[in-house]
């Protein structure tokens, strides 16, 4: 076993560990920011300023009884949350989160920060994310409850509708970068224009970025597009019948999906680990800052905007967002062709 192999394994383990931490931290962040926006303190009692609240939440959920409705499908009811969380973790596999590094001279050859670097990385993220729908849909179906079924149906329709805009917005960036590898897309954003504007694709693709973010909110089932769980109409939607650890896996999958979505947005639009002031060795700090900013926006949007109506969601998705993303793609393609010719 050589050192390089061990380091690669360590990086994979570290990424996994950080994703788990991200979901825990996001639970806390969500409650803290919600409290701040509603002029309350949020969780405050467990640990300093409520910092240990996620641990308390997890312990509470672990102690709960696992219930399964009588008419539920035994296998699929158990499989659904596992599928959800597996897809969420797996989607991060091709997302790089730092420049190639020798770990401060420990290695002879630089090693890349990220689980795997393959030449169709963007598509792999997209493929695995689209597998995550099955977790929610199956949870809704297997519970044998009308609220769950409606949640599952809505999730299927919503995710299919917004996946289109999401993928079309992505393709415009791929056209600009000329590569499907996330690492190469990030490397295409190094340097600056006129000495002070960073060469991030967000400045070339403002419309695409906005479409990506909106579709991203719908893809992760967050408010104002949280129809699969819409509390006021569907009790809790697809996870109505779930309890204990099985229930806990769904929010965990949602928070990890949010993290992946923000990480991909950072890589595609915000220049990944490139940024001023810091040497490339410390680029991951920029990456964390950018992810944090996007995640804060996610939470901010959730606690600021009310939920849409379901028909409004479909109208908006098909009649505005999708045509806009196609137009964006066509214009980008024409410009790339014109400027490269």
């Amino acid at each position, binding site marked *: 076993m050589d050192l390089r192999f061990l380091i690669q394994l360590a990086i994979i383990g570290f990424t996994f560990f950080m994703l788990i931490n991200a979901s825990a931290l996001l639970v806390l962040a969500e409650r803290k920011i919600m409290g701040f926006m509603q002029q309350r303190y949020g969780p405050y009692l467990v640990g300093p300023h409520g910092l240990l609240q996620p641990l308390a939440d997890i312990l509470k959920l672990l102690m709960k009884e696992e219930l399964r409705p009588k008419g539920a499908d035994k296998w699929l009811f158990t499989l659904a949350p596992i599928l959800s969380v597996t897809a969420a973790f797996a989607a991060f596999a091709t997302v790089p989160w730092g420049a190639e590094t020798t770990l401060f001279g420990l290695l002879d050859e630089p090693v890349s920060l990220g689980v795997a670097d393959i030449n169709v990385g963007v*598509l792999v993220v997209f*493929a695995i994310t689209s597998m995550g*729908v099955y977790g929610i*849909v199956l949870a809704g*179906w297997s519970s044998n409850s009308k609220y769950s079924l409606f949640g*599952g149906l809505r999730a299927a329709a919503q995710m299919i509708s917004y996946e289109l805009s999401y993928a079309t917005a992505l393709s415009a960036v791929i056209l600009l970068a000329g590569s499907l590898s996330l690492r190469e897309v990030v490397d295409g954003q190094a340097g600056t224009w006129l000495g002070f504007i960073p060469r991030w694709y967000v400045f070339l693709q403002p419309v695409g970025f906005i479409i990506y973010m909106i579709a991203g909110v719908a893809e992760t089932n967050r408010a104002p597009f949280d129809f699969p769980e819409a509390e006021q109409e569907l009790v809790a939607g697809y996870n109505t019948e779930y309890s204990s650890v099985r229930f806990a896996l769904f929010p965990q999958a949602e928070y990890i999906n949010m993290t992946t979505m923000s990480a991909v947005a950072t890589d595609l639009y915000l220049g990944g680990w490139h940024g001023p002031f810091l040497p490339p060795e410390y680029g991951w700090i920029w990456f964390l800052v950018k992810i944090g900013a996007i995640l804060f926006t996610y939470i901010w949007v959730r606690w600021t905007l009310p939920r849409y109506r379901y028909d409004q969601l479909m109208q908006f998705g098909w009649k505005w967002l999708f045509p806009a993303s196609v137009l964006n793609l066509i214009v980008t393609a024409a410009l790339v062709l014109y400027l490269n010719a």
Partner: protein
Amino acid sequence: MPETLIFWGLSGMAILASALVIGQRNPMYSVLMLIASFGALAGLYIQLDAPFVAVAQIIIYAGAIMVLFLFVVMLLNAPQEDAADWDRTHPLRQRGVMRFGALLALLLVLQLTWALLRVNGVDVPVAAQGDPDAVGSVRALGRILFTDYVFAFEATSILILVAMVGAVVLARREGDR
């Protein structure tokens, strides 16, 4: 050696899952087995050094089309396949129709056997890992699709569009706007 093992594992999984699609009565499980079979196929494509085809398989078939299948099965909410009387008088279950179907199936088997027997004589270009012009690479695939096979490509897309418009026209009830 490990590659061979993975190949046998994946192909076994693909065949088993495909058999289970028609082998059991719950339509929900049929859909899931079909997804599992597509997943195994995607694995085989990766072994053939065609990651793009593998990912496209997952995105299009397992990710989009099967969600629609699942959607329909959920809307019908039929836990068991119906085998009621009306099912036996269904126009597709008459003797002549079934004979025609069997004939088509036989033809398909013959075609497949013929194609498989021919494979040995054909040179299969070996793709090198990481080579931008390798057979399975996105660049090469795109170039071929939009030069040599552009007619077939565009004809297929128009065919799909026609099918889609047709479905909308057929599904629209009389009296709708």
